């Protein structure tokens, strides 16, 4: 069974990662590059809107207010940066696919249709719910401290996944109510917010970015779910 889970996840993740790279190239990546042109060096007060690695020259290090800033490796602009983004997408898609196929193994029977529903659930868990508190941010956005946002993101994903599972798979009403409560919980507690406002990314750019990221993620999840469900079903004889 492990081979069935791993093989279907790796193949689905690779194909979905390549597909999402193509989808991102239409709107998302151009908006990221556009947002970077509005970034300036330095930090905004009390928040983490920061300039990027792209601002540091290739000479090894620079000096800023008398402080040496060492250059950390970053992919070169152009093809190298694109290839690293594709690699990131393939690895991320494979990670998501592993979580999906682990669920398929616990489920009674999964094909591409069921897989598509699981993909929609993945979209709700990993994108829709976190975006309610932390909308997708182009570079240069003003945001709360990274660590706080990451903890909230993981907590929201865990609560949403558990809440959905209780709501869908349990028969007792009281458990279903508990599931709904878990879905709502992350949004009722303190969502990390910036201390100050003042994005370097123009508002005219942020809204299209949010829509582009969520639509791209939705298409990605439906494809990943359907493909991983199809492959998992076809590989049922793998031990």
């Amino acid at each position, binding site marked *: *069974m*492990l081979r*069935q*889970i*791993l093989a279907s*996840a790796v193949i689905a993740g690779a194909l979905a990662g390549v597909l*999402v790279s193509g989808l*991102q190239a239409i709107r*998302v*990546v151009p908006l*990221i590059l556009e947002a970077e042109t509005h970034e300036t060096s330095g930090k905004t007060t009390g928040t*983490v*809107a*920061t300039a*990027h*690695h792209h601002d540091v020259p290739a000479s090894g290090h620079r000096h800023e207010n008398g402080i040496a800033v060492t250059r*950390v*490796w*970053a*992919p070169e602009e152009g093809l190298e*940066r694109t290839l*690293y*983004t594709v*690699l*990131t*997408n393939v*690895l*991320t898609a*494979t*990670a*998501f*696919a*592993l*979580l999906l*196929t*682990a669920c398929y*193994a*616990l489920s*009674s*029977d999964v094909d591409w249709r069921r897989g598509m529903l699981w993909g929609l659930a993945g979209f709700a868990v990993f*994108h829709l719910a*976190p*975006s309610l508190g*932390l*909308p*997708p*941010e182009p*570079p240069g956005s003003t*945001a709360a401290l*990274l660590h706080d*946002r*990451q903890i909230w*993101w993981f907590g929201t994903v865990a609560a949403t996944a558990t809440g959905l599972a209780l709501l869908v798979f349990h028969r007792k009403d009281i458990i279903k109510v508990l599931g709904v409560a878990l879905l709502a919980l992350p949004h009722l507690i303190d969502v990390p917010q910036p201390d100050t406002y003042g994005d370097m990314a123009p508002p005219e750019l942020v809204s299209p970015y949010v829509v582009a*990221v*969520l639509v*791209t*993620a939705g298409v990605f999840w439906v494809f990943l779910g359907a493909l991983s469900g199809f492959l998992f079903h076809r590989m*049922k*004889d793998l*031990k």
Partner: protein
Amino acid sequence: MRHIPSVKTLPSTESLSPAAKAVPVLVAALLGVFMLYGVGFAGPQVLHNAAHDGRHAFAFPCH
């Protein structure tokens, strides 16, 4: 002549007991979470720079 089991006689995944499923499911889930953390959330600047556009595009908290 030695008996060679055919593929068809192997138990299908659906007939495995919950206990037999537990290990592969846990392995896959932990591997998935580990990969997700490494690509989308790990702190080292080099990893961040390599995965930068992907992190933004998947709406993971970045910077």
